[in-house]
């Protein structure tokens, strides 16, 4: 044996860990932004709910007062009632729809999918406006309700169901699409019946997806503000209560109290969802063979009719608002007109509101995408201190659990505070952009993380060994490879910035009126046709963004992604 290992002894040297690397400094900056845009405002709103008007700590007095003098139990009860009804409605509707898309041979799957995702492009106010036109006091087909009023739980549930449909569908569709063909083949080999197979394979494999969709929909429905505001009538829910307390009565303490009440269930559903997602990871088998549905005439016919019905309703909800926006005076004068688009003659900010929205959405897409890419790249691909990485990853999940109304109110408390050196931001375009970037941060962060994790980590190692600086590799390799995800994030930010009302409703100023808020205000003032017109403008803009996004994905990407063949 020729063991020529060194025999002379060397004093082993402990290598010091460097703290101030460029990666750490950049991440520290990201962390600072998240603390300023998320943590501190949320602490402020918590603090406000426990303080009196003079800012002194009074414990739970605000809560006790709220529960004794107002009618909070009514709002809480309503909120949960709506949440549960809508969630069950949406989950059953989407499950069958997703089942049809994945487990049948119906024609036109692509079109059905496209239609199902249209509600994402509309502000939640849009279906509510359509409902008014269809079932309201002058509604076209209000007889269908058999005397029941649309202004209340029925209207809210219908509007929310429409708006939440695509969100639930995305999750359930994914869950159903990952099922392993081999499991079904095993069932056949074991002579299991169709029903047995459904309960032993289909449902269990979609279980986590279903629960996840359930929780997401529940959170969306209890925290949405647009639908109950437009069509809720006297049916109060927590989200509209916050708005009334803050905008109507300038009662910020109570607003903070209601916010806390709304935050609690949102946080809980979020925690359950995270837990389930972490469990689901072990279930997905990457070697799974995709499922190939067999032909079954009866099943396919039934599912096809179902999909036609559902997508017909979706199109009707969107179409009605668009159609109504061109009508002179519904339902008495059904002549077509463009008068409703002359926003400068209405209260609500005029056309400048629309252009403000466009500007806000563009900035949000630009800054939001850069911010997400920067922070995710730093956490995933650069050697940084692990406490920083974990801190960012933890904070990145928070925005998803925070209802927009709560975040908006928190921003008022934080940025409007006279002692805050950042209060120059208050009332500016910047604060609208910041709040929107933060509000929708979680999904973008997760998209970017998934995409960057797919890029082989050895690529950075190789380029370092070739003495190429990492930023060169970032632009030459990592970014081109992740371009689809980056476009995805930009599109997501743009559309959400166009359609959101919840956080920004507290943060706009007269100079930065937004289109979505204008819809709300015009509807509030009774100008429902112009509201429909503005909602239509938002929808068309989002749709245009979608088309542009599609063109970019197909055209430009085709060139840069030639290697994907």
């Amino acid at each position, binding site marked *: *044996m*020729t*063991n*020529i*290992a*060194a025999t002379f*002894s*060397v004093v*082993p*040297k*402990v*290598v010091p860990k460097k703290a101030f690397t460029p990666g750490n400094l950049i991440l520290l900056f990201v962390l600072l932004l998240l603390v300023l845009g998320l943590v501190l405002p949320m602490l402020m709103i918590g603090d406000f709910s426990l303080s009196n008007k003079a800012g002194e700590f009074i414990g739970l007095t605000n809560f006790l007062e709220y529960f004794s003098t107002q009618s909070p139990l009514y709002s809480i009860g309503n909120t949960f009632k709506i949440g549960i009804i809508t969630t069950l409605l949406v989950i059953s509707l989407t499950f069958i729809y997703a089942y049809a898309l994945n487990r049948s041979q119906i024609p036109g799957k692509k079109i059905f999918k496209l239609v199902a995702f249209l509600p994402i492009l509309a502000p939640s106010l849009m279906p509510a406006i359509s409902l008014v036109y269809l079932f309201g006091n002058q509604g076209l087909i209000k007889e269908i309700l058999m005397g029941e009023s649309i202004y209340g739980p029925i209207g809210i549930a219908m509007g929310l169901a429409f708006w939440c449909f695509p969100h639930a569908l995305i999750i359930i569709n994914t869950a159903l699409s990952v099922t392993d063909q081999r499991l079904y083949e095993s069932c056949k080999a074991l002579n299991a019946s169709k029903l047995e197979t459904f309960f032993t394979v289909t449902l269990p494999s979609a279980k986590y997806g279903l629960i996840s969709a359930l929780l997401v929909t529940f959170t969306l429905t209890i925290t949405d503000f647009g639908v109950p505001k437009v069509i809720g009538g006297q049916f109060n829910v927590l989200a509209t209560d916050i708005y009334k307390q803050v905008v109507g009565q300038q009662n910020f303490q109570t607003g903070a109290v209601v916010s806390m009440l709304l935050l609690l269930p949102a946080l809980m559903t979020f925690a359950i969802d995270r837990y389930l997602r972490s469990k689901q990871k072990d279930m997905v088998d990457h070697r799974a063979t995709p499922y190939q549905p067999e032909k079954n005439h009866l099943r396919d016919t039934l599912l096809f009719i179902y999909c036609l019905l559902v997508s017909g309703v979706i199109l009707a909800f969107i179409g009605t608002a668009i159609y109504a926006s061109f009508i002179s005076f519904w339902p008495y004068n059904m002549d077509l007109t463009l008068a409703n688009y002359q926003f400068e003659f209405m209260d609500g900010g005029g056309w400048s509101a629309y252009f403000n929205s466009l500007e806000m959405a563009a900035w949000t897409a630009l800054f939001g995408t850069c911010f997400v890419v920067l922070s995710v790249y730093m956490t995933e691909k650069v050697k940084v201190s692990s406490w920083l990485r974990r801190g960012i990853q933890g904070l990145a999940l928070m925005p998803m659990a925070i209802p927009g109304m709560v975040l908006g109110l928190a921003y008022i408390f934080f940025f409007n505070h006279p002692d805050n050196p950042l209060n120059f931001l208050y009332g500016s375009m910047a604060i609208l952009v910041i709040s929107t970037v933060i509000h929708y941060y979680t999904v973008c962060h997760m998209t970017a993380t998934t995409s960057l994790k797919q890029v*082989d980590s*050895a*690529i950075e*190692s*190789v*380029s*370092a*060994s*070739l*003495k*190429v*600086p990492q930023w*060169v590799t970032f632009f*030459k*390799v990592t970014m*081109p*490879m992740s371009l689809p995800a980056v476009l995805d994030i930009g599109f997501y930010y743009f559309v959400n910035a166009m359609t959101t009302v919840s956080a920004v409703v507290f943060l706009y100023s007269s100079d930065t009126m937004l289109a979505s808020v204008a819809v709300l205000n015009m509807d509030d003032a009774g100008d429902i046709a112009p509201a429909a017109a503005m909602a239509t403008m938002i929808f068309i803009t989002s749709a245009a963004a979608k088309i542009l996004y599609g063109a970019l994905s197909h055209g430009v990407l085709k060139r*840069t*992604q*030639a*290697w*994907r*063949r």
Partner: protein
Amino acid sequence: MANSKHQIYLRVKNVNKSFGDVNVLNDISLNCQQGELICLLGPSGCGKTTLLRIIAGLEQQDQGNIIQNGVDISNLPVEKRDFGIVFQSYALFPNLTVAQNIAYGLRKQTKTKKATRVNALLETIGLEEHADKYPSQLSGGQQQRVALARALAISPGLLLLDEPLSALDTKVRQHLRQEIKSLQRELGITTIMVTHDQDEAMSMADRIVVLKDGFIEQIGTPSEIYSNPASPFVANFIGSMSFVPVTACANDTLTVKQQNLPCKLPEWVTVGDTIQLGIRPESVTALPAKGNQQEALSGKVQKIEFMGAYVRLYIHLNDENMSPVRVMVDVNNELHQEHGYKENMAVELTLKQQAMAFYPQQGESL
């Protein structure tokens, strides 16, 4: 080459590394000579990849030093070190062509210089006509060649190969082994290769470092390691070996299952000790039992396994009271025909004396 053949190019000195509570590397020391191809061999989790990554600077050792060409590089970042690396996953830039991939490390050179270098390397790896293709359009073996060319483009002093052939088909793998080996010889580049495949290590390495649980089990040339394995672990990891518990008797004799066997005992054995006798399957002959042949062990064929070029017999030694001891015997096909081995056939085993290895009974430290 400026350096003479036997100069030490890379020293690994007392390297320690742990992840949390797990000690992945324990006091690892190793010297690589200029132009040598060293294989780090071991089962998964033995620390071989971590050691390679520490040499590359991709991982930071807790203690110890790495000295390359006389310079202490222990604390240098990856980009300041002088090496080329090839990963199992190829890690080619998927959005760049083959030529662009190879030229990636040459970005500071002039266009003509770059082109000359890239063309020369393409010729070396035999992929001239694929220069403008994307990696996804190549086969696995071709991709790994590109990765090798890319690593060599910057003329590094040290080449690191992290399981470079593990993702490839058997045939391609065997072909690439020789290709890499001859290229490495030709360039005279000091190379460290990580592998878990002992055949790969045997056929390519100048020296093999066998690692287990973060410790070096043995360092030596392939033939040294095969014929003198330092431990039962090494013996079993590289090739196969049967182990028979034996008792050392006086006058260089062993008792195996109440049968006596003459042999040359090593010095550390004292009479009366129970030790392990190790023997490789090709060093045992099994003949159909004919009577009391001296210096042979009797047993029974328990299982016959057809291996292609030869047949492996699993033989249980005769024994009255203890658990059976199994010995593997390789027999070539002609002999198998001649003797007609069958299950439950009584046989007599003869062990080649020079091929016997002795180890302390399991549980005792070496």
